[in-house]
């Protein structure tokens, strides 16, 4: 005789589960609704400019012609520059804290790095405007121009607000995210991997380089992508130091613009329907790009640190 087992024993259980399920279901719903809303609002622009929107550079509210090329370019360049600077630092933090740091140093340093993530974006902006940019102007850019001035990447006059400043600020901001997730990934590497390498006569560095890092590679790549997702969508600090000009130029010393910054600056100024639609399309692009990057990153991180706890910490 088989006994049918009721899942719900009384009304309280059912009400509880239904309530919680309803609350949880709001999250996927929010994701879908946000995407749909942005797409609907952006439609006039998508319809009018088509794919040209992605690579043309004219942004003219007077003649109602919009192209987000410089915004996309600026977003990618500033984020890649940030990754270039942040990844070595963050991996340094993660490797140092999991493999080399003396025990007493691990917690305080990890705490300091976490604090970096707690600093509000706008505070980074203030620091960027009043400390970083003067420092770059006075001490870094003259040196850069002396050594690399011949290359297109460091040509032109440095006005302060620039792709370079944006990239550096972004790098500082994403270091803690990449470091925290990489650290969790490296911690999830079984000790046996390390010991096996050491047992074969590897030095400590060789054990890290040949056993630990390859084992956690997918997770570390995921961590870097999480950082990239942050950088792509970061708004305030970038807006405050990048210069906000619709231009595509090779030089990092020149002002640039990002999608998020354009939204921050121009959204409340958008008076006509097409202007607004163009900005919504920028928002839609930003949304789709960051969701994609984040989704891929999560899948990579989850694959390494099972259970999905790694990187979920709301820093």
């Amino acid at each position, binding site marked *: 005789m088989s006994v049918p087992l009721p899942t719900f024993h009384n009304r309280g259980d059912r009400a509880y589960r239904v309530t919680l399920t309803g609350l949880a279901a709001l999250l996927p719903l929010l994701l879908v609704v946000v995407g749909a809303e942005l797409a609907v609002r952006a439609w006039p622009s998508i319809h009018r400019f088509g794919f040209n929107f992605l690579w043309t550079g004219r942004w003219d509210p007077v003649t109602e012609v919009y192209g987000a090329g410089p915004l996309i370019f600026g977003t990618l360049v500033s984020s890649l520059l940030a990754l270039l600077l942040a990844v070595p630092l963050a991996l*340094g933090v993660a490797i140092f804290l999991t*493999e080399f740091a003396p025990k007493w140093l691990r917690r305080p340093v990890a705490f300091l790095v976490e604090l*970096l993530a707690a600093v509000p*974006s706008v505070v980074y902006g203030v620091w960027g405007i009043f400390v970083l940019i003067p420092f770059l102007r006075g001490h870094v850019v003259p040196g850069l121009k002396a050594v690399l001035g011949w290359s297109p990447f460091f040509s032109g006059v440095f006005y302060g607000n620039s792709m370079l400043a944006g990239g550096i600020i972004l790098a500082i901001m994403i270091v803690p995210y990449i470091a925290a997730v990489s650290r969790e990934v490296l911690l999830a590497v079984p000790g046996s991997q390390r010991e096996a390498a050491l047992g074969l006569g590897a030095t400590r560095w060789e054990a*890290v380089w040949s056993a630990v890092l390859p084992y956690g590679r997918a997770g570390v790549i995921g961590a870097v992508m999480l950082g990239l997702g942050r950088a792509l969508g970061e*708004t305030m600090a970038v807006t405050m130091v990048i210069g906000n000009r619709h231009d595509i130029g090779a030089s990092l010393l020149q002002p640039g613009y990002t999608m998020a910054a354009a939204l921050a600056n121009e959204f409340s100024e958008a008076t006509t329907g097409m202007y607004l639609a163009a900005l919504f399309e920028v928002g839609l692009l930003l949304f789709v790009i960051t969701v994609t990057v984040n989704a891929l990153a999560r899948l990579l991180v989850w694959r390494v640190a099972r259970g999905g706890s790694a990187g979920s910490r709301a820093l």
Partner: protein
Amino acid sequence: MSARAIRRRILSAAMTGLVGVLCAAAVLPLVLIFADLLHKGATSIDWNFFVRTPVPIGQSGGGVAHAIVGSAIIVGTACLIGLPIGIGAGIYLAEYGTGRLGWTVRFVADVLNGTPSIVIGILAWTWFVRPVGHFSALAASVALAMLMVPMVARTTEEMVRLVPHSLREAALALGYPRWRTSLQVVVRTAVAGIVTGALVAVARIAGETAPLLFTALGNLNFSLSLGHPMQALPLQIFTYATGPFEEWHRLAWASALVLMALVLLLAMAARWATRQRYGTR
């Protein structure tokens, strides 16, 4: 030792040193930022700074009382909206989240965690500002609530999962229905952790600026009405820092110091709440 072995040892020592240096370099900006905040901000902070509202351009003095109160109202309202949803979703993930919906919610929460806050700001504008025709603090609160839900959901889930399975069984064996087991034993045991998660989320949204730009907008005057524009500390900092006046820049540093202190205070409170859980009773 052979030359090769010596080389390998040197390489190992050099790389150990290098990661140490990289780590120090990563922490350096934090030290610099804190030093600058204290150095440039502290001198401008006095009693008036906390209790006065801004004075006309050209005069010196004035404060950010309206922004501090505004931030508290906006963030508080966001908590009222966001915490129940986030905590509920988190409990769902921990209690029933083994199936397909659970996976989806978990995944979406992590993805939403990385969604640019400016996009959420635009949505809040579309839903709550455009239809009524004017900016409002409530729209800002909703935007911040949307940002905090995924964070709170994930930390709540983790904390509830930490409660030993044996406690749940003990309650069920006593004749607790599932929902009471969950609420009165499991969630109650995880409360300290959930509070920690909530505080971390509050610290994070308290510093958010982008979603406030076209929702709360900012306000030079004292306002307590959720239905109208309201000033918030991050917005005030943005305005002051990007403005042309020396006096404003001074106030920007001071406000940034206050905001940073508030955020740190919340982070400390979060740590303290966690320590209560693991410490002796």
